[in-house]
């Protein structure tokens, strides 16, 4: 199941240049590159002639040249040269996708281009903000994209999967959890009051005693999870809205489906304490990356079972509230999109 009429992260800005990059998104092969003036471009990665991936070709000025017979395409996707002939059929063109650079990511619109509005790109400004130190990365996940969304909405798993970094038993046993929902949004708020900080927080926060820890998870469809996370020394007023000292971070996640069973996981971690301390940014990043690699192992193991056993029965537990509400929103959006497509087809 894919939701097409949405912006997705296709790549980090540094991945795209004058060498064409091939990337599969929602089972569609895509080629990404930059024109000479730096403008990013996205084509269907298939020459209209004999179907070779255009990503195997090369850029000649602003034209992408197919490796097979040398057809050249300009940045609008129009074929502008066919070696050995002068006339170019007007049907000689490849599909282009709207792309926008923002927050050091390249965003792509996978649906009807007429509906692509850059103002609807989800806000990830912390990744590119002078008041925050931040580092982003990419993980390839051998699992369906919704399993990654699930993982970020139920953080009890930190106590078991990430014991050496961001998890401890308090997260599973002592969290006060509230779930708020709206038609296209879920917010899961978790507070762990007067408990020991986990290893990562001790390392970067210098805590000498117990902390009040928060995890506020914002889900925006299709697959954007923006987490407000941190902790302050206990009893200094964080639950009442006063964050004094301690550490304050954002864990930012954008998942892009590759196929039904694999995903592109773009993520970043930002901090507003010592924001210009590059060593701090790197230390925090390494801690979270250690945790996320543990999640990646979990996702591929889940997917292996799901590949073997069709629609196994599922038990839901109290901690699944946010997960389930998000999946309901996605199912509804998918139904609405399918209904709209059928209406268009009928016209």
């Amino acid at each position, binding site marked *: 199941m894919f939701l097409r009429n949405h912006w997705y992260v296709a790549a980090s800005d540094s991945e795209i240049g004058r060498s064409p990059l091939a990337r599969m998104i929602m089972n569609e092969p895509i080629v990404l590159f930059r024109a000479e003036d730096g403008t990013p471009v996205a084509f269907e990665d298939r020459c209209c002639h004999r179907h070779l991936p255009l990503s195997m070709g090369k850029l000649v000025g602003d034209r992408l040249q197919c490796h097979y017979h040398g057809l050249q395409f300009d940045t609008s996707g129009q074929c502008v040269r066919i070696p050995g002939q002068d006339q170019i059929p007007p049907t000689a063109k490849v599909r282009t996708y709207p792309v926008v650079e923002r927050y050091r990511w390249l965003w792509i619109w996978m649906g009807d281009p007429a509906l692509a509005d850059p103002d609807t790109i989800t806000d990830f400004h912390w990744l590119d903000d002078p008041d925050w130190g931040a580092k982003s990365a990419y993980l390839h996940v051998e699992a369906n994209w919704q399993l990654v969304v699930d993982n970020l909405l139920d953080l009890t798993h930190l106590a078991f999967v990430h014991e050496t970094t961001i998890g401890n038993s308090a997260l599973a046993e002592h969290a006060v959890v*509230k*779930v708020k*929902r709206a038609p296209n949004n879920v917010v899961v708020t978790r507070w762990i009051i007067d408990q020991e900080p986990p290893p990562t927080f001790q390392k970067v926060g210098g805590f000498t005693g117990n902390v009040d820890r928060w995890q506020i998870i914002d889900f925006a469809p299709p697959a954007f999870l923006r987490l407000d996370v941190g902790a302050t020394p206990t009893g200094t007023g964080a639950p009442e809205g006063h964050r004094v000292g301690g550490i304050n971070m954002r864990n930012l996640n954008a998942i892009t489906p590759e196929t039904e069973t694999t995903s592109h996981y773009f993520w970043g971690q930002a901090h507003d304490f010592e924001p210009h301390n590059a060593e701090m940014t790197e230390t925090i990043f390494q801690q979270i990356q250690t945790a996320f690699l543990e999640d990646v192992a979990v996702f591929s193991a889940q997917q292996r079972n799901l590949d073997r056993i069709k629609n196994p029965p599922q038990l*839901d537990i*109290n901690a*699944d*509230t946010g997960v*389930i509400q998000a999946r*309901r929103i996605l199912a509804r959006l998918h139904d609405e999109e399918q209904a709209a497509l059928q209406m268009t087809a009928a016209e």
Partner: protein
Amino acid sequence: MTDTDGWLRVAALSELSDDEALPAMLGETPIALYRLDGEIYAIGDVCTHEYALLSQGFIEDGAIECPLHQAKFDIATGRCLAAPATEPVRSYPVRIENGDIYVGQNPRGDPGNT
């Protein structure tokens, strides 16, 4: 009012806000307290479908929606309003005294099903 006649003090009135369910224990029984339009209600907190805690769900139009599978129960009576549950939750009498919420251990009569 004392703890005789089956009434138990379960919470302070100040703990119960307008838009949230307050889980509490009535002896060994999980219940939740709700305040709707100034009235306080107490109903069983375990969904009769697959045992989720209703107090973690969503309050809309005088009903509590189970957080897991969207069964619905009328907060005032415990009546089951929507599948996949089919059985009601128990509804208990409530009294307020000196800023404390007391709930009677004898549930009210069967409110019936959908």
